[in-house]
């Protein structure tokens, strides 16, 4: 894990865990089947997250979720979804390695993120997530607490994002 603390926000980078992109119809039947297969709530409201036993779903679009889970759960989840495929057509694609996650924590975290993210972070409640853009790069942003966010970007973009965040953190440390 890479960390950075040259500023008021603690940054750390994690390249672990299982991650899937789930696409499925939004009928109650389909969603219920998907929830059963996943073992955690799957909500149809964009931005909503359902969490249970280390597994989490985040609704990114009208028929799109990103599912995250501990590494050990990767194969069981894939198997469970394969079991409902015939009755509930869907797409489950392993994207565990596509993205790298950056955790950000500290009182100045919204100031740091606002250097690259255009959305109103004051209006982004804890427990929510969204797909948005950081400095022109598509990212998935989650808020876990008032001062704790997680940002995920495609692997090849992460060095750029990390550079910007660490430089921005140093800027915040200057207090100007």
């Amino acid at each position, binding site marked *: 894990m890479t960390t950075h603390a040259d500023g008021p926000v603690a940054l750390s980078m994690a390249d672990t865990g299982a991650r899937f992109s789930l696409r499925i119809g939004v009928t109650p039947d389909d969603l219920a089947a998907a929830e059963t297969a996943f073992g955690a709530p799957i909500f149809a409201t964009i931005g909503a997250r359902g969490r249970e036993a280390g597994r989490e779903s985040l609704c990114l679009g009208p028929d799109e979720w990103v599912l995250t889970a501990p590494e050990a759960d990767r194969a069981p989840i894939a198997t469970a979804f394969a079991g409902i495929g015939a009755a509930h057509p869907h797409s489950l694609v392993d994207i565990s390695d596509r993205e790298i996650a950056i955790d950000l924590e500290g009182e100045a975290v919204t100031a740091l993120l606002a250097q690259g993210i255009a959305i109103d972070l004051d209006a982004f409640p804890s427990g929510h997530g969204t797909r948005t853009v950081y400095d022109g790069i598509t990212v998935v942003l989650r808020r876990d607490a008032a001062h704790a966010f997680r940002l995920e970007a495609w692997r090849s973009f992460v060095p750029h994002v990390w550079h910007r965040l660490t430089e921005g953190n140093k800027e915040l440390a*200057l207090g100007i």
Partner: protein
Amino acid sequence: MSDIAAEPEIGLAFRETGAPVADGAFRVARRGRVERTRRVGFTFDGKPYGALGGDTVASALLANGVHLMGRSFKYHRPRGILSAGSEDANALIGTSRGPGRFEPNTRATMQEVFDGLAAESQNRWPSLGFDIGAINDAIPHLFAAGFYYKTFKWPRPFWHHVYEPVIRAAAGLGRAPHEADPDSYTARYHHTDILVVGAGPAGLAAALAAGRSGARVLLVDEHSEMGGSLLSMPEIGIDARGAWSFLAETLAELASLPNVRLLPRTTAFGYFHQNMVALAERLTDHLASPPDGAPRERLWRVRAREVVLAQGAIEKPLVFDGNDRPAVMLASAARTMLNRYGVLVGEHPAVVTSHDSAYATAFELADAGATIPVIIDARPTVEPVLLDEAARRGIAVATGHTVLGTEGRMRVSGLKIAPVTGGTIGAARAIHCDAVLMSGGWTPSLHLFSHTKASLVWDEDLKTFLPGQSPEACVTAGGGAGHWGIAAALEDGARAGATAAAKVGHLGRVHDFSVEGERVETGATIAALPSRGTRGKAFVDHQNDVTAKDVRLAVREGMRSIEHVKRYTTTGMATDQGKTSNINALLIAAEALGKSPPEVGLTTFRPPYTPTTFGTFANHHAGATFEVTRKTPINGWAEAQGAVFEPVALWRRARYFPRGNETMREAVARECRATREAVGLFDASTLGKIEVVGPDAAEFLNRLYTNPFLKLAPGRCRYGVLLGEDGFIRDDGVIARIAEDRFHVTTTTGGAPRVLTMMEDYLQTEWPDLKVWLTSTTEEWATVALNGPLARAVLAPLVKGLDIAADAFPHMSVAECKVAGVPVRLCRMSFTGELGFEVNVPARHALAVWEAIWTAGQPHGITPYGTETMHVLRAEKGFIIVGQETDGTVTPDDAGLAWAIGKTKRDFVGMRSLARPDLVATGRKQLVGLLTRDPATVLEEGAQLVEEDARPPVPMIGHVTSSYWSETLGRSIALALVKDGRARIGETLYLPMPDTTIAAEVVAPVFYDPDGARFHL
């Protein structure tokens, strides 16, 4: 500033007679907000000067009695300050904050002095005092409006080579710096309920009302200190306190509110759609030693639900001959210099006015020790109270007078004035003075409001434009809305703030301010003071050196709209955007046209409001973060091997791996030989990958691609060509069927996002009934390509769970297995013409698998190769690269890919277009190979092909798309698109180059292993 709360001893100050303090002869005791105990040193044109903390370059120079600060744009006339704010058109200087940190055209009135600042005058040579360019002033007809449209038209070539360069060298402002900017710049997004622009009385009242309501408020002001006109009017009483106490308490309250943010030194420079306002915050330009790594400026992109524009009003100059000499300035500038900076701009300043507000300035300067020789008022009558106050101080008032001219060269030394009776100018008399303070009334500052495409309404009483309707959620308050005076501005600002708060769902209360010491001021609007002479220059636009005569000339020469006048005379153009000149120019043009001002119109104010650095616009997009550079998991390994990289789309790819002192050609030749003869290793991770999943996945791909996909068996791969609806090639790639309902689609590196978007577009708009979903997996999988006759020998020992023997795993197969212990998707395919495998590895494990293959390949002479070798090897096989052999006008048949079209398919995207008459006609350019007559000659890509007997105008019948030295063939090869190319095979065509003409034979585009036997080894 530390003394922000210091209350001036008003009574005492009025009694004092301005004994100068040591830092400058014109510094007045007990006046101003400068820090008396903080002495600062700076230089101007190399000469050292003393200043006080809080000074600007302008106030510090004036404190030292220096009025001459620059030379004008066209005539090189000596100039001092015109105003004391950001609108100043005259005192533009060069500033240097150290090596590489030179900035031209800095406004002396805005640049804060710090220890070590080096400032210099500009637009003068050899010196500010003696300037050769001032000859322009003596031959003004050369620079009259529109002169170069008329004078320098012929002979035509002279314009570009002689006239324009000479004119540009003679006329202009500061010189652009040559060094790269060593500073860094930053940016931030910000959301607020209410943005208040301007922290004068209206803005402060608005921010207070909005802030107290609980709404999120951002208050910005371009000056180092907030307060606006309150900083220059300490004598006003507000709510039973002095103005400065009120200011300090108000700012303290605002700073204490958690929902309010204050940004001084921040200019709102542009107002864009949907209440997005751009701010430039100056972070370090005022610091002698900024913290290491501190950014110089910050761009704020603010999205506000409501905007209150409280930018106040700008005093209007009076137009009379010689109104530009150093020490001729706006009355408000003198008032600011006195009250904010403690500087007396002259010992004998004369006042020229058509508005009451100049009287207050005159009285304050008199009370501070100046002797006012006369107040010249263009109006025939003036309120008795003003005359009484003037008389009490022994100041003569000449009502109904005009100014015929000014005296003095480097500084004004006198005025010639005359009475005007019934339009007739009477006898002139001379007045001695060392400064002239002028006031023609006030112009609301509507620049940002105008950026919103808002309407402006002409007010006949105030003789100015006032804000009308705006499509944005904004309101103008205070002086900007024509509410003159502190009391009116406070009241209007409070109302605007409370209203904005209510609009965003908060309860805003309007506070009633009680204001003392202010009288309602009025004035008359005069286009230009009556003049007798024809030789003098009465300036309308000081920055562009446009005179009243120029504007009248433009009208005489047929300009009917102010937009025409602007372009003909340049009035209102350039960095100050006519802040002090637009209304005067309009009034003069309207008078000359015999029309009302609104009929003549007002020119458009363009962003930025004040000059903004390129650094602020670019902010993070400089240096390492200029643009994203995408790197593959193998990037670090390639770096360690000494690879030379090239950009491909946003990616950085290894181009070749030189050994020792190898040139690119030598390295590529070696890499090609190794791959053809043994085995080569290539990082193909950047290829786009899309996972297409669902029961209708095959149907979906069958409809999109030209090739048939319904019957492709799981475990098999097929090359696919993607067309646009126009029938032209958009992309290509190999598509692997992983399972009945799952495909692994590859795209070109640059085409990945485009292809996914096109797929989503068709899926969502044309075939929403299909049960299929698309997921980008470009970055899930890193791709390790292994090519060459020994590829299997290297790979086989690492593979578990799959037999990769030639028959068991034939060309164009795909399977899931383990390589070096990592689960992978293994394809047998080739872009080189050799036996090839592509190992798709989950990205986290890519480097480990790459290194395992690298190690296993050592006994076999494994050689890493880059994109250049890849290009050569595929060209030897005649494989196209989309974007190189295609340019958006190439059909599959043109590219020799007719075989890739499913013959029995009923439809696919672009199919109908392929039957269009122009796409089936003869004469289309077709892909062929070229072999130069001299095998050592490598053609230039892009070179045009002609026939031997062609006569001018020579028809160009084709062009070279790819050209390389082929180590395999021991000669050069090229691919080309040639008109009816396939029918020309065997012909010789010609490539005219600047120094020679090259002959080349047209051949089939496959140069190596035409039967494809080597795929199947």
